[in-house]
């Protein structure tokens, strides 16, 4: 007979249970989401009107840097790992993750990494202030002393991600229930499998580039210093060789979540399962050969510009396949619009808009005008906020009844959705305009002609931020009680996770189910 969790705090400290670890990852990432969000609000408050009102330029740069780092490495990535921990074993009919002790460790080093990163705010010289892309030599010769702590924190985050990824690969490849062939796996499992390989491929590259920085700063090497025979552009090549796959790491699992939710609420199978798998794999492959489109203005030879432009444009093809598939799945379905479905539909629409601006950015000559402006800020927030954040939110609403055994409050969920949807668009849509009109990114103060749209964007940001409090409240209420959920929760959803009771018992699939 399966036993339950230990009582008290040691349950969380020593746990090797995938559900406990999944919950910890999710709570941790939500805390980071709020922290990174508060920093975004500092930025938006300063940009509410021209002139310096609230913070000085140096601190402003610390805020943009920390906001980016915390959101990417603290909020989005751990949230997806949390969802993978909860759902992958339940989706493939496995009793737990393949490497449960490593699972515990890969989570528990994260709070230390972020405690260290955040502590730099209180150090002399302040926190890292060179942007989340930390281009050398601004991040080496010209960096504040806290850069060393930043480097060590990135090492720990990287170790955590690599361990999480290895665990997910090992689980998916070895622990599927009998009959669960690769091409029968839910798309969330597929997208995570591919994401895990991306992580294993590129996190060591990130570790390498920060280590080279460390050597430059403390041990007299000159990897990135032209004066010593090094090359500042080399930094950007290595960084973006990590950085571009990284942005797909933040979106592929989202594709998986949305591909689970849309068929459920359209009451119609996903239009093209296998083409979705192939499209995901193509995107992952292409992600390795497009990195220098982030560097169109560094002065590459024209052959390089053309190659990276063409390769980047190609990404639109598999991405288009995905969007067309979701739309065709909705077409002639029998749709209802519960909160997870609302977030998923908003995902498809807004992610597509972000894709359009991505296609525009891929055109190198036009990019010379867009590059490093608010148009870029608008673009990547349109793919990351409705992409990663909305899909994670949709996934939490979708699976929360399975996790807790209780239904969340649907009206409150819908209010959360509409506030977030309106807030997001009011915040980020005007950024396209100011960017095209000539406003560079990462500036604490701006010329007068940008004032109106910046003011609108700031109002939207506070609305978006406030909406998340409602989310927190709804989740806490659902964890504590509420209307009991059925085992299926939704109408005929597909997947093994719905065959176990709600709430899911502490141990599931101790004997593997048989998949036909």
């Amino acid at each position: 007979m399966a036993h339950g969790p230990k009582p008290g705090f040691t349950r969380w400290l020593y746990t090797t249970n995938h559900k406990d670890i999944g919950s910890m990852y999710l709570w941790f990432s939500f805390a980071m989401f709020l922290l990174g969000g508060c920093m975004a609000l500092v930025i938006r408050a300063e940009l509410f009107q021209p002139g310096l009102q609230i913070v000085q330029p140096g601190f402003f740069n610390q805020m943009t840097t920390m906001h980016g780092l915390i959101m990417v490495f603290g909020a989005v990535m751990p949230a997806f790992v949390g969802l993978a921990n909860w759902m992958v074993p339940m989706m493939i009919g496995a009793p737990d993750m393949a490497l449960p002790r490593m699972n515990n460790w890969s989570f528990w080093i994260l709070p230390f990494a972020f405690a260290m990163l955040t502590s730099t705010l209180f150090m002399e010289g302040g926190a890292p202030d060179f942007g989340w892309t930390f281009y050398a030599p601004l991040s080496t010769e010209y960096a504040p002393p806290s850069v060393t702590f930043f480097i060590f924190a990135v090492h720990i985050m990287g170790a955590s991600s690599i361990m999480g990824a290895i665990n997910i690969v090992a689980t998916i490849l070895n622990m599927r229930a009998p009959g669960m062939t690769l091409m029968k796996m839910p798309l969330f499992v597929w997208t995570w499998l591919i994401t895990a390989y991306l992580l294993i491929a590129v996190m060591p590259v990130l570790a390498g580039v920060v280590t080279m920085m460390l050597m430059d700063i403390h041990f007299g090497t000159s990897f990135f210093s032209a004066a010593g025979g090094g090359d500042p552009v080399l930094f950007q090549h290595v960084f973006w060789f990590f950085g571009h796959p990284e942005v797909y790491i933040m979106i592929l699992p989202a594709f998986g979540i949305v591909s689970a939710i849309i068929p459920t609420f359209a009451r119609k199978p996903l239009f093209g399962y296998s083409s979705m798998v192939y499209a995901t794999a193509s995107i992952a492959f292409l992600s390795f050969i497009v990195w220098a489109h982030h560097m169109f203005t560094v002065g590459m030879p024209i052959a390089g510009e053309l190659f990276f432009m063409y390769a980047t444009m190609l990404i639109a093809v598999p991405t288009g396949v995905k969007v067309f598939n979701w739309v065709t799945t909705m077409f002639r379905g029998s749709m209802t619009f519960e909160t997870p479905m609302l977030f998923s539909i908003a995902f498809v629409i807004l992610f597509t808009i972000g894709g359009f601006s991505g296609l525009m950015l891929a055109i190198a000559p036009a990019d010379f005008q867009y590059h490093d402006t608010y148009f870029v800020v608008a673009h990547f927030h349109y793919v990351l906020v409705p992409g990663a954040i909305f899909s994670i939110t949709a996934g939490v609403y979708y699976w929360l009844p399975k996790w807790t055994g209780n239904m969340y409050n649907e009206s409150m969920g819908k209010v959360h959705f509409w506030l977030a949807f309106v807030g997001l668009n009011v915040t980020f849509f005007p950024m396209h305009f100011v960017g095209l009109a000539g406003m560079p990114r990462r500036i604490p103060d701006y010329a007068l002609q940008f004032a109106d749209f910046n003011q609108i964007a700031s109002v939207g940001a506070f609305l978006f931020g406030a909406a998340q409090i409602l989310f927190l409240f709804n989740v806490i209420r659902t964890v504590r009680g509420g209307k009991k959920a059925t085992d299926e929760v939704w109408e005929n959803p597909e997947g093994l996770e719905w065959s176990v009771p709600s709430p899911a018992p502490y141990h599931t699939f101790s004997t593997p189910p048989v998949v036909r």
Partner: protein
Amino acid sequence: MGIKRLFAFLTLATIAPGVLAQETAQNVEGGAARWGVNMTQGVTEVSRTTYDLHMLIFWICVAIGVVVFGVMFYSMWRHRKSKGYEAAQFHESTLVELAWTIVPTLILIGMAIPATKTLYDIYDTKEADLDIMITGYQWKWKYDYMGSDVSFFSNLSTPQSQINNQQPKAANYLLEVDEPLVVPINKKIRFLITANDVIHAWWVPDLAVKKDAIPGFVNESWTRIEEPGIYRGQCAELCGKDHGFMPIVVKAVPEDEYHSWLSDRAAAAARIKELTNKTFTFDELYARGEEIYNSACVACHQAKGEGIPGTFPAIAGSKIATGPMDAHMSMVVDGSPSNPAMQAFGAQLSEVDLAAVITYQRSAFGNNMGDTVQPIDVLNFKNK
């Protein structure tokens, strides 16, 4: 019926912001238009081609968006359970999958052709009439007119009091400099772009020129401006604390006006050189030094010489500014051996200005050394 209404609504929603923007478009007195929503067409052939390319891709995206979102909104309207719509169960179709792979590929090829052409134009930096070296510094630009003695720094001229909201902001707030880059119209100007410390990017939207300024590398770019006028831009690569405060102003003038400006500049540079041998009084140096301090030093060391603790050392009461003159000159002329943020100003300021600013620092902010250093001393120090 429902569809028609939905379509009308969508059309309105798409057009309305544009119309609204048109109607409320008004100028910031003497500055650029407010509520601007689009890229400038600029004043060069390249900037216009770039704009056309941008609009072409934009409209293709709009067309695809109308189709995709149209189908989505149609299904969301018609195919809902609340209307009793029964779900169809179709899925998988190789033909459809092929179609929506091949058609987008063809559209992309259609985009790539004009993009490639424009890129070749932009990369053609051959046969320029005039070369200008642009060097990015934290946080100012230096312009060298190759083949002449003219060389100067271009600093933000917006006063701190406007930035700190103690004074109303002028029309070209943050987009104005003490010395603009003056260039002739209808000439092919080649820019050689580099940096002295960290990476910057030189960007003027009206010229559609944006190129990174990278220490140790020289990037090339070019422009041929068709209309006289003043064109404003900004640094586009995060370069530290005052990244937002290093604008670019290009003044394009007819060719004869350009030549007379150039010879005036050369004469002025010669006059400054002559002053090196003059002996100044303390008051003269102090007054000139205050001006220099407020353009060259104030960004880091701050208005009262207090610096920024942990990042930029104070001058008020510092060991260097209240110590031996040689050490002070060495710090200002050669920069700091341990902290690259303290630049070598020997190559940036004239001997007169160096002497003035050193004299000022030693007696301002409560430092009461009261001594002076003469331009000729600075010259001798440099030549040592």
